[in-house]
């Protein structure tokens, strides 16, 4: 089965979902250790969509005011990884991480910095596992915290014609006991998708050997 740039065949989509699943499972284990609670994951969704559609997908599943930790990655393919939560749940997540013994003032003081480090640990776990699985090396940037709606997070307004359609990979992440519900999202632009397809085929060939 052949496909043009920007389209994924069934097997490519399946392999990407499996690779993402392994990466995110590692990330979920890390988050679980940090909050001391069980973390549940959904089945990963892999789609090629516009940035606007990606933004809508994230917003439709929750309130539009979001907070995200993002890290860029670069290597044989590049893009951005985001850990996203509704702003209303951010303090609860931070409280779960720093421990209930801290006052609300302490939690508010630590919010931005604790989220950045949490994102750093979780997104690195996910990206490093994917890189190791694909036998490639990626450079991963420092984390930054952004607040806004889905369009802000996914830079909808800055997208040029070529950058508009992205490979969008997302997974629901739920900290069950805390009622905290977020997403891990990976966004890759089209030139990256072409490179990624080649690497995914190497991976599929290795698995089939």
């Amino acid at each position: 089965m052949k496909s043009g740039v920007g389209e994924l065949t069934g097997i490519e989509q399946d392999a990407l979902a499996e690779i993402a699943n392994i990466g995110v499972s590692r990330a979920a284990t890390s988050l679980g250790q940090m909050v001391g609670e069980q973390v549940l994951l959904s089945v990963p969704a892999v789609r090629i969509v516009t940035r606007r559609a990606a933004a809508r997908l994230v917003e439709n599943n929750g309130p539009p005011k979001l907070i995200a930790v993002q890290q860029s990655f670069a290597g044989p393919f590049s893009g951005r990884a985001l850990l996203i939560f509704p702003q209303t749940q951010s303090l609860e997540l931070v409280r779960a991480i720093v421990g209930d013994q801290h006052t609300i003032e302490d939690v508010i003081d630590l919010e931005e910095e604790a989220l950045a480090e949490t994102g750093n640990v979780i997104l690195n776990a996910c990206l490093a596992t994917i890189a190791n699985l694909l036998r490639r090396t990626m450079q991963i940037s420092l984390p930054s915290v952004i607040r806004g709606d889905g369009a802000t997070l996914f830079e909808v307004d800055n997208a040029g014609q070529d950058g508009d359609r992205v490979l969008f990979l997302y997974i629901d992440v739920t900290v069950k006991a805390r009622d905290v519900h977020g997403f891990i999202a990976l966004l890759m632009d089209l030139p990256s998708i072409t490179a990624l397809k080649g690497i995914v085929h190497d991976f599929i060939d290795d698995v089939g050997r």
Partner: protein
Amino acid sequence: MKCNVLVVDDSKLARMVVASAFTKIRPDWELTEATNAEQALDILGQGRVDIALVDFNMPGVDGLELLARIRERHPKMPIALISANLQHEIVARARELDAAFVAKPLTEDGLRGFLSGAALRLRKAAS
């Protein structure tokens, strides 16, 4: 044998996690914190550090670069890179510097393993 341990991490949360585990594992040892490479090298220059734990992902000089500089000046010091970036290449580069790799999120077991190995090395070197 009491040791002075230096932890270098730009994240306050990460330093809190190290300090909390450290106090449980080695309540009689001393922990010094630095938030970046420059501060870390200053503290190391004062000559009171026995063991260093360095975060990888820091603004400016990253953890591997800092470890390389520490290694130049302290060829025998037990050192570790601490990171969630467990890519094979990063772990291999830490090993090349004769540094341990301690995974984030940091667990008591992970830190205990490194500190025990480090204490053993220091005792052997002193004997």
